[in-house]
């Protein structure tokens, strides 16, 4: 019996970050589906798990966590010897990995989540696009990907020479962006394009996608 519970939505990018990590580490978990349309994430019992009312929330025994990147790091730390190694041991290389983790969190994600909302979710809910937001964020993403192209020409993965949480944290937004007009920004850059193809082909990632209801 597993001690791990993930409370979230299979469609949510932040939830997918956590399930991807659990699949990579080959750890069993119970998934508690939170109905976002009903607003269940803003009510009890969910609110006691995350007072900010955002999915996912996570339990491992009596440890309760929220914030997807804190959860993924906990999983990788606690279950270090299981499944894929998602971090780097050498202290200086780990610092570089930490740097690119912040880049994803502060630069990439700020822009990508706005584009995912506009181009991935609004059409599902039949809400009209805000073309100004799309244009502004497409331009910002273009600049960020210039930096990524240079980095990936020097390093096989974003965090270093191996696949780590840094790359994994990008996967959920990439899933939506690569189905939209934004994919051209990735496909036009050889190193970025190869990196996207590589990380999205991972078997653990396909298990995360399989959770999304059609």
């Amino acid at each position, binding site marked *: 019996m597993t001690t791990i519970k993930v409370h979230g939505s299979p469609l949510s990018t932040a939830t997918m970050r956590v399930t991807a990590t659990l699949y990579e580490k080959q750890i069993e978990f119970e998934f508690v589906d939170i109905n976002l349309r009903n607003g269940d994430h803003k009510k009890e019992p969910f609110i006691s798990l995350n*007072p*900010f009312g955002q999915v996912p929330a996570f339990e491992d025994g009596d*440890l309760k*966590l*929220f*914030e997807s*990147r*804190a*959860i993924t*790091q*906990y999983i990788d*730390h*606690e279950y270090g010897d299981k499944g894929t190694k998602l971090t780097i041991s050498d*202290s*200086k290389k*780990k*610092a*570089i990995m*930490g*740097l690119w*983790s*912040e*880049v994803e*969190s*502060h*630069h990439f994600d700020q822009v990508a989540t706005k584009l995912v909302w506009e181009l991935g979710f609004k059409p599902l809910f039949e809400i009209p696009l805000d073309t100004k937001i799309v244009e502004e964020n497409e331009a910002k993403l273009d600049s960020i990907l210039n*930096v990524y192209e*240079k*980095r990936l020409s020097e390093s096989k993965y974003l965090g270093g020479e191996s696949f780590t949480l840094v790359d994994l944290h990008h996967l959920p937004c990439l899933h939506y962006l690569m189905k939209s007009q934004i994919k051209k920004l990735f496909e036009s850059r050889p190193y970025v394009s190869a990196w996207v193809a590589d990380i999205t082909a991972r078997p653990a990632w396909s298990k995360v996608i399989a959770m999304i209801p059609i």
Partner: protein
Amino acid sequence: MALKIYGLAMSTNTTRAMICLHEKEVDFELVPVNVFASEHKLPPFLNKNPFGLIPVLEDDDLTLFESRAITSYVAEKFKEIGPDLIRHKDIKEASLVKMWTEVESHYYDPAVSPIIYEYFVAPFQGQEPNKTVIETNMEKLKIVLDVYEAKLSTTKYLAGDFYSLADLSHISETHYFMQTPCASMINERIHVKAWWEDISSRPAFQKVVGGMTFGQNDQK
């Protein structure tokens, strides 16, 4: 060779890194970057940080940017010196520190920074503070501070009854925020206020606070 921090004494992100270095009693040199002359947007600085932002840390052959990556590295490297900012011996405590550091990064900072900008930076550009921006972000901050008030009524600091990187990450931006008319949002919440008075009185912060001025005290 001593560590170098490239940045500015009044920058919130630079001081976040410096406070951490002082907590760990690490000698370092602050190398000023002339952002007013756009030095941070040109080589050679751009070779250190391709995003053209301060601070940058140099430790021998290691170059790091992103202030929270810098503080993580420093806290880890010098974990046996000074306060245990990352709770490295206890995975659960360590994960709670990471969680509240993420909260600062994703909730607190995005609400507080635009308010600081409107009161401190906009006047330098000859603009009045934008009331809509301020009000919108005060609404967001209210939600965050209510969560903090509830949490800090159960533990002395954010991650537990121990001072950590999660608390440290808040100091620089809160210092400026407390000089704006919005400071009442912190003062009217007893536990948040007590927490702020505690963390801002730490000697490590006192070593950097003197440099944290935009010259606002010189304005009439």
